[in-house]
């Protein structure tokens, strides 16, 4: 069952950047890559809970602003040799509007 929530227009998220969706369970970062792909991750680095949405987005990765851990935007997996995973959420774009699905 998927429950799609409208987040906003893709242009509202900076290219190679992110915006935050606030939820009762904590923030979710909505990331936009240089290629205009959209990904959603729990906005907490598995290392020390840094806000990933504030990091530098490069390729399909984001670098945590606190201690430079790299996280794969697609899976939320931390890039080796560090270890860990940030929860990822399904997203889709329809007619330039970004939708997020929460469990």
């Amino acid at each position, binding site marked *: 069952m998927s429950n799609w929530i409208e987040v906003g227009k893709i242009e509202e998220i*900076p290219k190679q950047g992110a915006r935050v*969706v*606030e*939820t009762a369970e904590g923030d979710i970062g909505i990331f936009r890559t*240089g290629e205009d792909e959209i990904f959603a991750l729990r906005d907490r680095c598995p290392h020390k*809970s840094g806000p990933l949405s504030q990091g530098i987005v*490069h*390729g399909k990765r984001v*670098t945590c602003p606190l201690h430079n851990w*790299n996280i794969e935007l697609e899976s939320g997996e931390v890039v080796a040799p560090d270890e860990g995973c940030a929860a990822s959420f399904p997203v889709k774009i329809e007619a330039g509007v970004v939708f997020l699905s929460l469990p």
Partner: protein
Amino acid sequence: MKEKLVLVGNGMAGVRTLEELLKIAPDKYDITVFGAEPHCNYNRIMLSPVLAGEKTIDDIVLNSQAWYDENNITLHTGKTVVDIDRKAQKVIAADGTTARYDRLLLATGSNPFIIPVPGHDKEGVIGFRDIYDVDTMLDAAKNYKKAVVIGGGLLGLEAANGLVINGMDVTVVHLGDTLMEMQMDSFSGEMLKASLEERGLKFRMNSSTTELTGGQRVTGLTFADGGELEADLVVMAAGIRPNIELAQKVGIHCERGIVVNDTLQTFDPKVYSVGECVQHRGIAYGLVAPLFEQARVCANHLAGYGIGMYEGSTTSTKLKVTGIDLFSAGDFHGDESTEEVVMKDAARGIYKKVVLKDNKIIGAVMYGDTVDGAWYFQMLRDETNISDIREHLMFGQAHLGDSGHGGENAASALPDDAEVCGCNGVCKGTIVKAITEKGLFTLEEVKAHTKAAASCGSCTGLVEQILASTVGDYSDTPKKKPMCGCTEHSHDEVREAIREQELTSIPAVMTALEWHTPDGCASCRPALNYYVLSAWPQQAKDDPQSRFINERAHANIQKDGTYSVIPRMWGGVTTPNELRAIADVADKFNIPSVKVTGGQRVDLLGVKKEDLPAVWADLNAAGMVSGHGYGKSLRTVKTCVGSEWCRFGTQDSTSLGIKIEKMTWASWTPHKYKIAVSGCPRNCAEATIKDFGVVCVDSGYELHVGGNGGIHVVATQLLCRVSTEEEVMEYCGAFMQVYREEAHYLERTAPWIERVGLSYAKQRVVEDDAGRKALHARFLVSQEVFQVDPWAEAVEQDHIRKDYIPIKKLG
């Protein structure tokens, strides 16, 4: 179908190449490996500690069978390849096993040189090359008494030391009169001999062996001078020869080694070769350090990327005899065109010699205290001009000012629970464990896996020593250091290309210089953004997404994701109105913490990101602008009260500081940049640990540069004295501009000056009047563009302000 890659030689160089290849092209090849020894790949340079009983064979295994299995590599151990059918692209082993290849990698290593004297083939005569030799020596130690090692080089001494530890009576027979003459000069050679004699080794110097005597087994040696020596075991450690037997047999061009080009390709384009069997630009390397660079380049070409050239290595040496610290690098003998700086302290057992040519280090030998070996080696490779630090050179890097790990210089003596990296709380034991369990070899790998030396970097030397004492003689040897993994180009090359090719955007740089990644990484993007802005202030457009969050949000991110806000207070001077506005903001936005900073400003800590624009709007309304406490930019100009109030003040340091701050604020620099102005030599503003410091004196102003109060406390050096405020302003702008134009991103002025020399800064800023004026003018042009308050911009422009708030609030 995958292509087939066959590796002949299951040793360090070959397997390292496979590891590098698997990192970048894991699915390109079906890989088959042939090894003559019945073992998996092990760390050959750690055989000496195994012989000495300090490590076991298991400790030195680098790739277990599981590693080969996980990577789907077919491993044939104990099978010597005896022929290659180059036409059919097939290798043939002694037992008849064959394997076809599309690409072949020869890494056959080297053989010990067995001196061809009569009797050299007797039982009990061996080389020192592999696990079999170690086992033979350990067996001999149980059953026999007397051993002779022929060759007083690195390997011979390690073998002799190991045999003494195993209870044998050992004599080292050496042809020359200096031990390790490839690595030592005569003085340090004598010191080494003395300490080895204390450990029970005996020496017969200037001795040429003419015959090994005995029956089936060796019982003694005779020498050219007629003398004789009894021996039950003879270890030949008289050098190594590249093992080119196979390559030569199948017609691949060999001279002393298998001849390869800068891509590690042999004369047969399908055949590559790496390691000790190789001859590159006329040199066959007998040390492990060059292998890493060779492996990296070779793997890149095997992967079909075609990037990277091997341009040779400068090597350094450490002897792996526990308790003896010895280091040498480069040309340490010198000749008539060189000069020597020597420090001898026989009572402390310390000897250091640095050989200089044209004010550059070309070689070094150290005995007893080798903590600065890596530092000398770095300067040797970088061809650093040392004339400015010459008087401190022999006292080491710590003497230049290092608060971090100054006195700590014996990594091997540290207990496992000693904290090495104070930033990340990493103990020695953790580092050693990571190195051995994960098979790490380079400083970069240790940093990535353990985080030691990965933050402030002050423990780098210590971590390098731990690495060296754990895996052996190691040194990362690239001639130039690429900016990051996205490129082969160094910082200087990138800056030069940006200037000369008029590259004004990050994508333009990445295209022109063939970046390997589509849009860089978190390390190169901020650097490139800075480089294009500083080179082309009027043409380049700032890319906020390539800035670290602090510069994007104009505030400092804190550990909980909130921000700290520092309004500018010119020269550290404030007013009751400004203080009231700060107090009101703190109340209004429930800011939990208000603190005075080291740079004489007030810091509001714990501001939520979405509150930032409103906080700034209130501060702007009271006349305050961004303090840039978050930026690689001018931070603050710290002042004392000066002649206006102070009974000792010689000049009006406060108003001069304000003038300087009004000129320099909001400029971007390679790293943070701090200025201070003190009103007299009592220096209450601490101007002599700033990037640019002014100390007022009765006759005018002393200008000091290159100070740093951080990780490495570095006091400034005097740039010059001037007599008017106008001159202070001009020199200040000019010095800042030359640093802005030429330093590497994230390089403070202190290390920059250490790299380029104070004389260079003087030449640009003091001696060249026209050049100084031009620099200052360029600084002012750049300031016309950048001197804007980013807070006001964010407050006034909706589209910027929006980025500070959540795109959506749910629940």
